[in-house]
């Protein structure tokens, strides 16, 4: 059982070492939403036929998505602004029924197209009942959030690596004595030489070759780590098991 665990961990260890860039890319892609887009807000009176407006906008190729803003939140915000301006929000003359949308453009929408869409909205809705926000992009606001998350993700790979190394070492140490002894006995009672060295070279080496072959097709493979793995494995085999004795 221990042996299978060790073999599995050897594979996992090599995989994690070689795939550093892939793991990091994966983590960054998980944390960083790279869907940078432009958008603008539309606020219109609920008396307008907003459903028709939304439908017409959705038909446009430039529009990626239309998000309906929460009406209660809009009403609350409007009331807050008006109360700050000392406007009586309870006045029956004041219409506080607004609907809001966030119009999100597709990724490759040109600035000119974005302007045309905005003008189109102005034509669809009576100007008195419409408030349009400026066209913005989410790059700057996302960037800070992403930087923070990417920084956090940089701790994840070393944590995974440390965990795998820790587990690998536990198995390695617990197996070292048994492996040495079995190899010693095989050498004593069979007509074989350098059993441990050969076993480890075949065992760990085949894992290494297997992963290197697989990863040679993947450009993100960390070649520095691959060299590191080879040196580590050779050091482990030659150094760690140098004393192939029963006593060791």
């Amino acid at each position, binding site marked *: 059982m221990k042996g299978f665990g060790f073999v599995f961990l050897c594979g996992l260890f090599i995989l994690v070492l070689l795939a550093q860039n892939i793991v990091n890319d994966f983590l960054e892609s998980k944390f960083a939403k790279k869907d940078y887009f432009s958008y603008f807000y539309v606020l219109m009176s609920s008396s307008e036929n907003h459903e028709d407006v939304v439908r017409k906008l959705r038909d446009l190729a430039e529009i990626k998505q239309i998000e309906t803003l929460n009406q209660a939140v809009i009403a609350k915000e409007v009331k807050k602004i008006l109360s700050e301006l000392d406007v009586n929000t309870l006045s029956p003359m004041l219409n506080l029924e607004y609907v809001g949308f966030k119009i999100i453009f597709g990724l490759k929408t040109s600035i000119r197209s974005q302007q045309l869409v905005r003008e189109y909205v102005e034509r669809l809705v009576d100007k008195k009942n419409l408030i349009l926000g400026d066209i913005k992009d989410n790059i700057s606001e996302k960037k800070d959030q992403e930087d923070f998350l990417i920084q956090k993700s940089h701790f994840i790979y070393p944590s995974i690596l440390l965990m795998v190394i820790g587990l690998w070492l536990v198995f390695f140490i617990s197996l070292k004595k048994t492996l040495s002894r079995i190899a010693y006995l095989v050498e004593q009672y*069979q*007509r074989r030489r350098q059993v441990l060295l050969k076993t480890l070279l075949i065992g760990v080496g085949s894992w290494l070759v297997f992963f290197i072959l697989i990863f040679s097709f993947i450009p993100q493979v960390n070649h520095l780590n691959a060299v590191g793995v080879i040196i580590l494995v050779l050091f482990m085999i030659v150094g760690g098991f140098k004393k192939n004795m029963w006593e060791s």
Partner: protein
Amino acid sequence: MFDQSKTINQKNAHYGLKSGKILTLDNVGVNFKNFNALSTIQMDIGQGEILFITGASGAGKTTLLRVLSGQLPPTKGRVQLLRPNAHMALVFQDLRLMENYTCEMNLMMAYDTSIYKNKNEFIYDMIEFANVLKIRNRLNLKIKDANGGLKQKVAILRALLSRPDVIFLDEPTSSLDQENAQKIFELLNFLNVKKGLTVIWASHDRDLIRSFSGRIIHLDGGRLIHAGHACFI
């Protein structure tokens, strides 16, 4: 004690060689720091010979076995294996068995695909030997659960199953009674006669050795002080 008339010099260490030599020791000495474990041992061991090495504890029996088997290089002199391809198997005093493995798994360590045609042939031999030593029904027992006698038998069988040309045994029957020790010797004697197995057996039990036939050398303080036939002890 030894008959004084038989207690002769090292020239008689060649006494009783049956056939060609397999090992020669030429003025071999071993020093451990300031301790002289073996000094100027000169002797030949013949192919297919049974040789007993006797002596009190610390006389140098184990050191001589280790030197003969190539486990310990001598600090002076020369050990020559005259048949370089000869396979040597050792039965160590500490037995060197895998404690968490069963007796059978320990015996399997000797399964050499270069000398056995297939596994069945090995298992056939294993069962045959196990029957002789009456341990067949205990082969599934883990070594850690086995008694000293069973462990010694497994260690000896493992060495024999490797089909050696020379077998070195260091106090192989220390945990066995006379009857079981006799059985082991009979098995070794059988293999010696049938297969030409060279047996080199270190023991301090002179009473046991007296009942066997073979050549004997007696060590004292790392010196070879007697060589002769076992029955003359």
